[in-house]
């Protein structure tokens, strides 16, 4: 069994050893997953999609690029100017020059003044598109949606499967009346914790502030009173999932209404799938077979409980909250270490994990 991970390894089939390497992560935050980790990630995503089917949430696939103009309506450039990766083409007047240069030698970059204006952005979170897609809608019932997206962020540094240029985010979103959104988040908060417990994955729940609303002092104050974001943190620093309550921010900005005419509330549960891979591999000393076994066993374990609740509705409404033992720890007494490395979840970028 090959348990190499991290660093620069061939992640395809290694002709010399016959073994598959788990993944290859480069310094610029680009990672290639080998077959075993790919299978593990698909298996996890399948299971989360199973949760979404049970809601039931509509599966959706949104465009791979977002319009800058659309994101602007969500205050994106005000709050996250540092985060977005814009897309651009080579300006027509420079085509010939670039082609000549490519003939003459290796091309490693194209200068900004040769590019067209950037009108599109790579998504930084999966669920923006859910709200944008619902623009102008009047919902006669809560709308549940699940989607997965490759999300991209410019970061100060990159690190293995923990912090990537581009990563995979699965989300299950609820848009509708406040009560429905809160119930959705409560259900998934308990479900993620219970599943992590079945995986023997030590997770802590930590309240996080969401800079999404940072331009509004009143909202920021309210957020401190009623946390809108909780992160599931592995190993003290790595947020692998989050539940996010957006109040009616997206409902207002995207003009989404409930049946009674009020602006829709929204909330999402988000999973950073590569970070789950990191956590699972870390737990099992890089042994992907054992990680997969733990996942399959946890799935069977959850199925046993679901079967029981199917037979005796009411007897087993929800798993007892495993979070009693996993309440956020008091703030670490680090004092001077104000920059204690804390890897924010995908939802520092507002909507997502």
């Amino acid at each position, binding site marked *: *069994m090959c348990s190499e991970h991290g660093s620069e390894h061939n992640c395809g089939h290694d002709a010399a050893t016959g073994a598959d390497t788990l993944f290859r992560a480069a310094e610029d935050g680009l990672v290639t997953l080998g077959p075993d980790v790919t*299978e593990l990630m698909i*298996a996890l995503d399948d299971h989360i999609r199973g949760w979404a089917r049970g809601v039931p949430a509509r599966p959706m696939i949104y465009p791979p690029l977002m319009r800058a103009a659309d994101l602007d309506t969500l205050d994106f450039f005000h709050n996250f100017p540092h985060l977005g990766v814009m897309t651009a083409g080579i300006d027509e007047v420079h085509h010939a020059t670039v082609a000549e240069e490519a003939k003459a030698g290796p091309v490693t970059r194209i200068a900004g003044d040769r590019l067209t204006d950037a009108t599109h952005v790579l998504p930084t979170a999966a669920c923006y598109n859910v709200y944008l897609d619902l623009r102008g809608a009047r919902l006669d019932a809560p709308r549940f949606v699940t989607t997965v997206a490759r999300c991209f962020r410019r970061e100060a540094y990159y690190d293995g499967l923990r912090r990537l240029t581009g990563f995979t985010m699965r989300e299950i979103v609820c848009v509708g009346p406040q009560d429905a959104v809160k119930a959705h988040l409560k259900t998934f908060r308990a479900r993620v914790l219970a599943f992590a*417990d*079945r995986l*023997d994955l030590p997770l802590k729940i930590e309240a996080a502030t969401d800079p999404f609303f940072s331009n509004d002092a009143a909202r920021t104050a309210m957020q401190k009173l009623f946390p809108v974001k909780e992160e599931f943190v592995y190993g003290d620093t790595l947020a692998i999932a989050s539940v996010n309550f957006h109040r009616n921010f997206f409902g207002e900005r995207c003009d989404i209404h409930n049946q009674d005419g009020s602006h829709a509330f929204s909330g999402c549960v988000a999973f950073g799938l590569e970070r789950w891979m990191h956590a699972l591999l870390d737990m099992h000393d890089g042994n992907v*077979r*054992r990680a*997969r*076994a*733990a996942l*399959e*066993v946890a799935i*069977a*374990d959850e*199925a*046993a*409980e*679901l*079967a*029981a609740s*199917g*037979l*005796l509705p009411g*007897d*087993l409404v929800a798993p007892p909250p495993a979070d009693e033992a996993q309440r956020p720890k008091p703030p670490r007494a680090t004092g001077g270490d104000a920059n204690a490395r804390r890897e924010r979840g995908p939802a520092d970028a507002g909507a997502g994990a």
Partner: protein
Amino acid sequence: MLNTSTSSALPPGVLAQPAFARAIDRLSKLSVDGYYNPYRSFAWPDAIDPASWWMPPELLSVWGTDAADTLDEATLRTLAKWESINFYSLNVHGIRELLQAVIARLHEPGYEVASRFFHHFVGEENDHMWFFAEFCLRYAGKLYPDRQVRIETAPDPLIENFLVFARITIFEEIVDFYNTAMAADERLDPAIRKINQVHHVDESRHIAFGRKLMVLLHEDLCRRGDEALLDRVSEYLRRYMTASIRGFYSPDAYRDAGIADPLALRRGLLSHPARAAFDARVLRRTTDFMTATGILRPVREAA
């Protein structure tokens, strides 16, 4: 009894992980919360309509083949009755065998944590054996005999500990495929749906338990570093799955459904591609699990 206590003991530590103990506690709690008295839990009707489907036609061993096309619907319904009796009979005989293996390990050294759940397992399996047999005797007047023959061999206890729980889990996962389909099928009599539903709920715990044991015991086998042994174990499990699935092709049921040459029919079905595809589907959950976890290994071609 003397001389038996070391044969199925486990090395200390194999099942000693705290995560396993917590899982055992969770499953035990589900068992306690879901505890029922089987002798009072079923409303047995006086009779099951002989013209109704006792088993979904899509689950019949002839489905998808020319043989199914040549049988009229009345014969198919009769066959469904007898194949369902065969299914419950396989359950009764299979449970009796797995109970013996589990009871032999109850409170053996190394199984301390597992033994806490073994008691639930043994009790629940006895209930299943009873209600399946009760169904057969009430509505068909008989069980089919056990066609399996166990040949006594001297097993390697460490492999045998793993194989016992692998066999149990594979058997349960095969049965669960049928249970879930039959519990949900509205063409079936409510009494039939109920026994399948109840069995599914209990088995989902046993499967979760079995998978945990399989994984831990297989890790223990892996620690020996004997690749050839792991290949043999894998090969054995493939053969065990095939043999188990073949039990669903019952000449006794064909005979009772009035089919002329049961053994020839069986032989034809066992070589039919549509049946191979269906059987693979029945086994998919368990083969996916065992492949992903490395318990089933790639078949090596002889050099």
